[in-house]
């Protein structure tokens, strides 16, 4: 049994918040994008941060938010 985290918008479960953030930003549907707004985040801004600079800046920013919001799942 280990702690996992569930995507707030779909059934995806990941072991790390950073992985969950990667999953999240890989989705192209409206639903995923919209939820970010409710968290005060911009999908485009996160992607831009991720792709225009070296490092993992965009994912990290979302992972920080997911740490607070993603439901925990034991599997």
């Amino acid at each position, binding site marked *: 049994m280990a702690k996992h985290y569930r995507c707030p918008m779909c059934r995806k479960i990941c072991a790390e918040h950073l992985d969950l953030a990667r999953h999240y930003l890989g989705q192209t549907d409206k639903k995923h994008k919209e939820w970010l707004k409710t968290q005060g985040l911009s999908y485009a801004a996160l992607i*831009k941060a991720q792709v225009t600079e*070296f490092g993992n800046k965009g994912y990290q920013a979302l992972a920080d938010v997911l740490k607070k919001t993603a439901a925990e799942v034991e599997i």
Partner: protein
Amino acid sequence: MKEYSIIGKPTPNVDGPAKVTGEAAYTIDMTLPNMLYGKLLRSPYPHANILSIDTSKAEELPGVKAIITGKDTPGGKWGLWRRFRELSDQQALATDKVRFIGDPVAAVAATTEEIAEKALDLIEVEYEPLPAVFDPIEAIKDDAPMVHEDFPSNINATRHIEWGDVDKGFAEADYVREDRFVLEAAHPCAMEVHNSLASYDKGTGRLTVWTSTGSPYFVQQNLAEALKLREGDIRVIKPHVGGHYGGKNSTMPDAVNAAILSMKTGRPVKIVYNRDEEFTTTEHRTAQNMALKIGLKKDGTIVAFEVKTMTNGGAYTGLGATTLYLTGTFITMPYKIPNYRYDGVRTYTNIVWGTSIRGFGAVPAKYCSETQLDRAAKDLGIDPLEIRRKNAVIPGYEAPGQYKFESCGIQPCIEKMAVRVKEKWPKLEKDEGIGYCAFAYMSGGIFNWIDTPYAYSSAHVKVNWDGTVDLYSQAADVGQGHNTVAAMICAEELGIGIEDIRLHMGDTAHAYTDLGAWGSRETLMNGNAIKDAAAQVKQKLIDIARLKLGENIAYDLVAKNKRIFLELRPERGLSYYDLVKDAIRANDGVPLTGTGHYTPHNKGMISPAYGMGIMAMKAKVDRETGHVTVQDVLVVHDSGQIINPLGARGQVEGSIHMGLGYGLCEEMPMDQGMLLNPEFVDYKILRTRDMPEIEILDVPTYEPNGPFGAKEAAEATIAPAAPCVANAVYQATGAEFYSNVLKPEKVLKAIREAEKKQKASKATGK
């Protein structure tokens, strides 16, 4: 290695007699009785709302039989990324707005091509031009015009790949460098333009479409979506195809509008693009901006690698999202990279879209990584061939969660290259240089964005009473020679001759699904299916032979040279032809059949197998004009067991030709979304006098996932050509390139830069 009777032997093209006599029919050569000619009216604006379309004048023109606009189409959207519905973004005719110069807004069917052309002039369209965006960097800005609703900042697709600990890797590196590149677009320029002939049968409600495509199955799926018909009611036939090179994967408006016009008029309708339509509205190799950061140890070992890319996706998706993924994958091959991170964004922009052109992401990727590697090698004082050998993968190498190399001959390839280069080019003249590039490429992709429920490849074999074999498959020969490979694999497995095989390929009504020709997949995937199908028939023959021979169960029987015999006592056997007759008689007159399927499982994210090797080019630079002469090319490659050495050589040489074009002269300059060189007059393609001679050496391996040990031999060598040239110029002059097309003016500028730099460093050195 195993001795085969057919596999590995130079075999002339089975389509040869048809192709050298002019008898081979391409879609463009086909006509049907009572056929109409269709033409598309296209937007002159890169981004505009359509306010109104008035077709009344055009309708009055004698000979015009139908005119349709967006509202007359069934309205289904289609795309190849069907797993992500929102990425099915293509439509037959623009309804509300146009998204690039060339987006079709109306279609005409008339009794002659000339009347159709004249009718286009009579259609009045009122547009409201909108602000447009043409560049990926502009596209993701907050205030950029939106190309598609629901895609804020025009982000069409993203891709992230990561393994190891990249930040730690860079921290441990002795040497880190960053380079930024701008890669130009290039067009595949198939000689046969996109064209389709559609015939709708009113009585049965069934549609038949002949089209110049690499995948009849993709077209069938897409037509079903676009026309809101059932897949089974659509038959797609791929006649001979005059070139593909990745530009004929997507279903284009020619096929869809020909179909709609045929459904509307009840007559066959044919749409043929002009060459400028081909250039301005069909898919090309995506332009992109790439940033690379590499960390190495002093000895040249790569410890960390990070890549960021933004592709100028254009107005629709096509296979561009796959290209984005593969760019991030192929850029790592064939090297051991312990820590890797990739982020890519594909942006929607108001230009024609970029997609899966030959090399599928590897071409721009390798250009950047391999020219960067040369610079790093120079800084570290390591020989460019040695740094490649040092980092090259070994059999069994696995990029965590991504891909695994089973057969893998890259190290022996590099060793062979080192020896051959010394013999071949013992001395360099002034302003000459040798450039290297190592490469690897997939043997068909393990992706299911099309969301097919069927096996990826299949084939059906039917053996007739006289021993002739009918081989049915949807697999597509688009010039790469797959028909020959298919016949060879089938004949080898059955132990018969190629002349015994009758091919029935590329027709959705004749066979089970095959995803078609893209990503060098047919030899391995369709080849496995054919081998499977033939093996089933062979087994039936062996069973009968065993009965008739009454031999000990412990003896193995083989099929070879038109006989079935005991492997250890070849004199004991029976004629294939006799056995077939007996088998059919014994089976109540039912011909022998076998149906084979292939879908890769548990083979990572990319492909079951990889072709690979290393290329070297010797080039001379004219320091006054900037002209680069590629004098000689040497390739050492591992393509597993090569099925047909003639065809493999053709593929390697053709890839090099296209790759050299990418490196030297092919480009798509645009102004406000308009292509400035949409004819062969201005789009420069290398001619025979511009091509060097090419020497190809093989390092054969046995690929366990491929039929008879075969794997990719088609596309791998396109990617290394351009970086080889750039590296040769770099070695000769020190000139560094951060974009791909080495036009003389660019070369001259880069040489002057390098001279300045060398002077400056000399000065500071003093």
